[in-house]
């Protein structure tokens, strides 16, 4: 079926909801319950009252959703206006006099609550929301003592699953529409809606089609009753038994703020915290429900050492001695160049720094890489002009040179969607295939895999007002004409089946644009921290190159490597040929993560010594000489760096079972055994050393990190005015309201701001200039040569799925069921040309290897290309990719 209909997602938002919300800079005077306040014109009364200390009860209104006026709970009396008004849809006006507790208002509130409770079951003792339920709380605070309703309440089958993660209890639902509005307005997945009418209104999905949204957990968090419950959390805790700690999510590089909650030393819940610059209260389902892996039986609880060919459990001193001995042995036989450190992109800043210091300062090897051929050159990431997420909202245009953000960086997808869809920022989509953000794009440019350069050139010209002859060029010029602000390029690996040179070249064509800034779309949780802290060849901690930082670091550390080392591909190749004899794997499994599995396998088989720092017995650890299990997310205080370069704290909520070591102590202990005592006792001392030593981290010490509400963007000298202390607005509300980030209380720090909860004081932060100039990326490479398209072959596109085969998903039962078998995604035309059908197994062969997969028709994949998820379990894309070739051509043959 063909249609030229505009998808709803592209309709201007004014055609979808009609209540304007646009507070301006000008203020008006409003008197609320006798107190006069200055409030921005256009602000909604309910929000204005809240910001000035008057809480107006509400169910449907949510700060991050558009007002809808469905529940009528927020009625107030406004002098001069007839009847009561709903404060959630009434903008303030000058001279307004508002009463929120008058007799008329309380009578109305009584009535509304009595009405809402008519059909609401009184099953609070068995309801997950009981104890933190707005309906309970507000009935107590504002409601009538008893009900006059004696008839039968309405009944539904309860609860029904509406997705693998969410259960719906229609009896408890009060029809506030928070979930349906979230799904439509924020997530862009309107898979739930109200069905029926009047007394039989209920939240529905379409027939048996589940609410498959990567953001479904947010509806549970904002539901003001227990109608939506999370299957992983159901009946696991009562709210009053929960202890919570503010932290950042560890599932991807966005590092959303969250409140991590535990009971009986078990993590049970992560709630989104409303960090204005980052996640604005939302989380993706992977981050929200990826908790159980921390307590998985598969976690390693004891170090292991290989004795007589068998890995056996050992004590920490023995295991560290064994690891140190193996390293010393390799140093003796092969010198520093015989050792390489891989990984660190899933750890924390502190361990990344200390691994870098151990490798480069103690061992003297520069063969260090946090990325396993799945990332971008550090030269680019560390040296490009960086954007922050809030830059998206005020951009002249957003250019996507990135993988599917909805799968890889879900909350960044929400922010880009909001910028493009709600704030009208032109979005230019340069990609091989359609993805989650394509429906919101102003201009869509498609290119052959491995060849984005020409498309980027068109964009670069159009963004300086030269449309060229293309329609998209004109569309971009029309959309951006007269707009100010930075051009934000979201830069990532569009496909791990092609060489990164291609995308780097495309990015280089945009570097000449005025006010261009790049936002990295690398997805591993702390890949940016690892790169910033020197876990990459040719760089030292703090975004300085080996040469630029040589003097500084020789002073700080005593020594640095002489020459630039190999990257991951080079390390693996050298290990495969025996040049590198010892591999230290820091929380990474090359067999699962490296896009070229054959190379990784050869390297691991050939290496004499493999020291695996791993929380799980993954395939790499399985063949290791020594396995060192670190504590993980939720078990240790630390910091992480997100894709903006924002350093944020990670909280400790539970005590690890068994005998694990804080991840940063492992390199420190190894260093001590290799003759270099780092003399670091606490994680704060590590942070202070980073602030002292690493140029980009200048000024970002433990004390500042504790006090900065939304973290600190590096380098501090450029972002000092964005650091906020204290707390905006009123105190932290209940879980269903936006939870605001809170700085850690600092006792006797004389630099701490006054404790008054005033309006986000943006105090002057001392921002020292980095002692060494930071690296700049300023050498646009020549266009890489791309082989011409081969009419007989398909060109592979491989990207990551949200629920891939990583440890978080695999060891979390709630998420493990959401993974998919890898398939070969083909355009219908190629499918027919090859004479295959959906579900047929075919043999896929490339120059590198061959695998058998089932065929799936995929409309997003253009003709001539093939799509395979890169991070699925089992044989798949990594068996087909050669890290060195510009593109991956594959042939398909049917197998009987």
């Amino acid at each position: 079926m063909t249609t030229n209909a505009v998808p709803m997602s592209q309709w201007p938002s004014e055609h979808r909801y009609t209540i304007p919300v646009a507070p301006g800079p000008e203020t008006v005077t409003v008197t609320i319950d006798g107190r006069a306040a200055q409030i921005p014109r256009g602000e909604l009364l309910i929000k204005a009252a809240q910001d000035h200390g008057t809480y107006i009860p509400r169910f449907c209104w949510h700060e991050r959703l558009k007002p809808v006026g469905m529940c009528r709970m927020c009625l107030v009396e406004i002098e001069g206006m007839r009847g009561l008004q709903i404060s959630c849809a009434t903008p303030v006006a000058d001279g307004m006099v508002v009463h929120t507790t008058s007799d008329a208002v309380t009578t109305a509130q009584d009535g509304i609550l009595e009405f809402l409770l008519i059909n609401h079951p009184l099953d609070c003792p068995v309801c997950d929301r009981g104890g933190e339920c707005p309906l309970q709380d507000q009935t107590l605070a504002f409601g009538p003592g008893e009900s006059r309703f004696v008839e039968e309440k309405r009944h539904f089958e309860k609860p029904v699953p509406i997705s693998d993660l969410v259960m719906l209890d229609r009896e408890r639902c009060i029809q506030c529409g928070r979930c349906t509005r979230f799904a439509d307005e924020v997530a862009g997945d309107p898979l739930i809606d109200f069905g029926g009418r009047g007394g039989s209104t209920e939240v529905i999905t379409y027939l048996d089609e589940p609410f498959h949204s990567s953001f479904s957990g947010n509806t549970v968090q904002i539901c003001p009753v227990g109608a939506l419950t999370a299957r992983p959390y159901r009946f696991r805790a009562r709210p009053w038994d929960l202890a919570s700690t503010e932290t950042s999510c560890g599932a991807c590089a966005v590092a959303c703020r969250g409140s991590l909650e535990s009971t009986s030393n078990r993590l049970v819940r992560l709630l989104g915290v409303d960090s204005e610059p980052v996640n604005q209260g939302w989380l993706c389902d992977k981050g929200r429900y990826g908790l159980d892996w921390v307590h998985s039986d598969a976690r390693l609880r004891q170090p292991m050492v290989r004795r007589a060919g068998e890995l056996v459990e050992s004590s920490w001193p023995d295991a560290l001695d064994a690891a140190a001995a193996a390293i010393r042995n390799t140093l003796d036989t092969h010198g520093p160049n015989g050792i390489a450190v891989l990984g660190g992109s899933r750890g924390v800043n502190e361990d990344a720094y200390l691994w870098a210091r151990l490798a480069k300062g103690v061992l003297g090897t520069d063969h260090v890489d946090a990325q396993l051929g799945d990332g971008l050159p550090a030269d680019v990431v560390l040296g490009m002009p960086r954007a922050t997420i809030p830059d998206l909202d005020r951009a002249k245009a957003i250019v996507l040179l990135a993988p599917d953000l909805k799968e890889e960086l879900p909350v960044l997808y929400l922010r880009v969607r909001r910028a493009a869809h709600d704030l009208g920022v032109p979005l230019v989509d340069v990609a091989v295939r359609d993805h989650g953000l394509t429906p919101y794009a102003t201009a869509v440019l498609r290119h052959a895999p491995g060849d984005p350069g020409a498309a980027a050139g068109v964009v670069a010209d159009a963004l300086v007002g030269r449309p060229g002859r293309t329609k998209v060029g004109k569309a971009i010029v029309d959309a951006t004409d007269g707009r100010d602000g930075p051009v934000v390029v979201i830069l990532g690996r569009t496909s791990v089946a092609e060489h990164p040179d291609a995308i780097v070249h495309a990015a280089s064509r945009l570097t000449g644009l005025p006010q261009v800034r790049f936002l990295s779309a690398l997805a591993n949780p702390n890949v940016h921290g690892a790169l910033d802290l020197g876990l990459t060849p040719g760089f030292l901690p703090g975004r300085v190159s080996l040469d630029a930082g040589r003097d500084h670091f020789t002073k700080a550390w005593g020594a640095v490597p002489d020459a630039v080392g190999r990257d991951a591909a080079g390390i693996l190749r050298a290990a495969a040929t025996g040049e590198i004899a010892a591999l230290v794997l820091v929380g990474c499994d090359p067999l699962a993560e490296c896009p070229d599995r054959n190379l990784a396998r050869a390297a691991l088989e050939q290496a004499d010594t493999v020291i695996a720092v791993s929380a799980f017995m993954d395939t790499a650890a399985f063949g290791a000489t020594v396995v060192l299990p670190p504590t993980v997310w939720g078990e240790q205080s630390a910091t992480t760096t997100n894709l903006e370069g924002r350093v944020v704290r990670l909280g400790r909520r539970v005590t690890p079972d068994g005998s694990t070591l804080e991840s940063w102590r492992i390199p420190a202990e190894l260093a001590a055994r290799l003759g270099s005592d780092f003399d670091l006792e606490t994680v704060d001392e590590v942070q202070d050393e980073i602030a002292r030593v690493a140029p980009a981290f200048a000024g970002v010490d433990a004390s500042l990190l504790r006090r900065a509400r939304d973290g600190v963007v590096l380098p501090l000298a450029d972002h000092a005015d964005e650091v906020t202390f204290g707390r905006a607005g009123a105190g932290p509300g209940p879980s269903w309201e936006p939870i605001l980030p809170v700085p850690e209380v600092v006792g006797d720090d004389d630099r701490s701001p006054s404790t008054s909860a005033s309006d986000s004081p943006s105090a002057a932060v001392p921002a020292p200039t980095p002692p060494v100039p930071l690296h700049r990326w300023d050498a646009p490479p020549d266009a890489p040569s791309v082989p011409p398209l081969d009419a007989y072959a398909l060109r592979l596109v491989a990207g990551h799925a949200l629920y891939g085969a990583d440890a978080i998903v695999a060891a979390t039962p709630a998420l493990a069921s959401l993974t998919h078998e890898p398939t070969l995604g083909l355009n219908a035309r190629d499918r027919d040309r090859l004479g295959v059908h959906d579900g047929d197994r075919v043999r896929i062969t490339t120059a590198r290897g061959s695998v058998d997969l089932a065929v799936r028709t995929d409309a997003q994949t253009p003709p001539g290309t093939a799509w395979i998820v890169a991070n699925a379990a089992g044989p798949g894309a990594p068996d087909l990719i050669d890290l060195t070739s510009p593109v991956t051509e594959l042939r398909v043959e049917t197998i009987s």
Partner: protein
Amino acid sequence: MGLTDADQRRAQQIIDRYPYPKSAVLPLLHLAQDRDGWVSPEAMEQIAELLGLTPALVLGTCSFYTMFKREPAGALVVSVCTNLSCMVNGGFDLFDQLRSRYQESSDVSVEEVECIAHCDHAPAFQVNYDFHGPADAHGAADVIEQYLDGRLAARTISGTARQEVPR
């Protein structure tokens, strides 16, 4: 089941009348209902695709209106009023008798409705939304038979083909 190719062309004309395609949900649901006698899941999915909506949103709208049948219905929908005026004039009797009479019929569906504003002719009923009454069960059956054998021309199950009215 669902919209034919001709219907789809018709649907496109309807969509073109509106600045935003979502506005065409109701006329398209009528179109689908007139085609099949009910709104089938296939039709809802087609409409969703035509309008760039999710099927959940189409179902949400469709289920709001009782005049959209989401189960197969007869070509004639007989709506018997049992609201106040009709009730005191025998509306329930009329409803019960018609219902049992046409229980087995695949052509006639009998349903109970609230006030249809035909109180001066109580007990009133509609056949495909054309008003009739007052009538007892025999009289009503006689009217229905006239529709069935073509002596009276019935509107469509959606009441009429209103979308054909010129702009």
